[in-house]
């Protein structure tokens, strides 16, 4: 018999831990989606969660633990609440520049072909697809908190 959680139920909070590295993001996403499977998110919700987490994790792997530095731990805490998934990402790598979140503005596409942006989409996507994004640097730790408004419960 299936032990699938009934729709009305809330998922237990969980933590996924990976070590930074080239395949850390894929591994982390796989582990997170294993845990989220009882929520039976639809394609739209799944792609929102996957994009937000992939972009936030890419930033950690590329900038908090750049290839020149030693690798380090990345912790992903997820709490399922009535208003969506509350995510907290923690790492012990380099801090954000000025200890602030990047603006995440989209560059104009209305430019010459050769000036089209090839990057800088990551923070735009995170901010566009999630709510209540907060960054703090405390005791050598980066903490990124955000809420993804999927899997609402009454």
């Amino acid at each position, binding site marked *: 018999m299936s032990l699938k959680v009934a729709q009305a139920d809330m998922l237990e909070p969980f933590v996924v831990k990976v070590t930074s590295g080239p395949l850390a*993001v894929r591994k982390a996403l796989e582990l997170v989606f294993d845990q989220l499977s009882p929520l039976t998110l639809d*394609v739209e919700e799944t792609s929102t969660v996957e994009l937000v987490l992939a*972009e936030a994790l*890419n930033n950690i792997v590329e900038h908090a633990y750049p290839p020149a530095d030693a690798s380090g731990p990345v912790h992903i805490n997820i709490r399922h609440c009535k208003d969506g998934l509350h995510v907290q990402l923690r790492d012990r790598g380099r801090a954000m520049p000025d200890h602030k979140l990047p603006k995440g503005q989209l560059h104009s596409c209305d430019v010459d072909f*050769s000036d089209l942006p090839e990057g800088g989409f990551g923070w735009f*996507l995170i901010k566009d697809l999630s709510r209540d994004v907060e960054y703090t640097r405390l005791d050598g730790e980066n903490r990124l908190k955000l809420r993804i408004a999927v899997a609402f419960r009454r």
Partner: protein
Amino acid sequence: MELQIKTESNVCIVSIHESRIDAAVALDFKEAVRQGTLDAPAEVVLDLTQVGFVDSSGLGAIVATMKHLAPERRLVLAGLTPPVEKVFRLTRMDSVFQIHLTLEDALRAQCE
């Protein structure tokens, strides 16, 4: 990077046989497509039918590929799955590329 490149009726078709174009493979993708399109005709179709996820690095690699192929060659996209279409739409990159629903649509459009 698993991909297949063939030329049919003077259109180069680059089919990506990967489920993801993300940060882990973005550089490989750029390099493989560059190498594979050295002798390509003026029209290049990137067939993304099998790709279920593109992140900002993958998107950047696709934009870089289009810029690299220009001005001699034009890169058009086909077969975007819903999550991939969403990334192009949110970043407004859907206004930069010619995008076809399926590979067949893309080929038909090139013939007209």
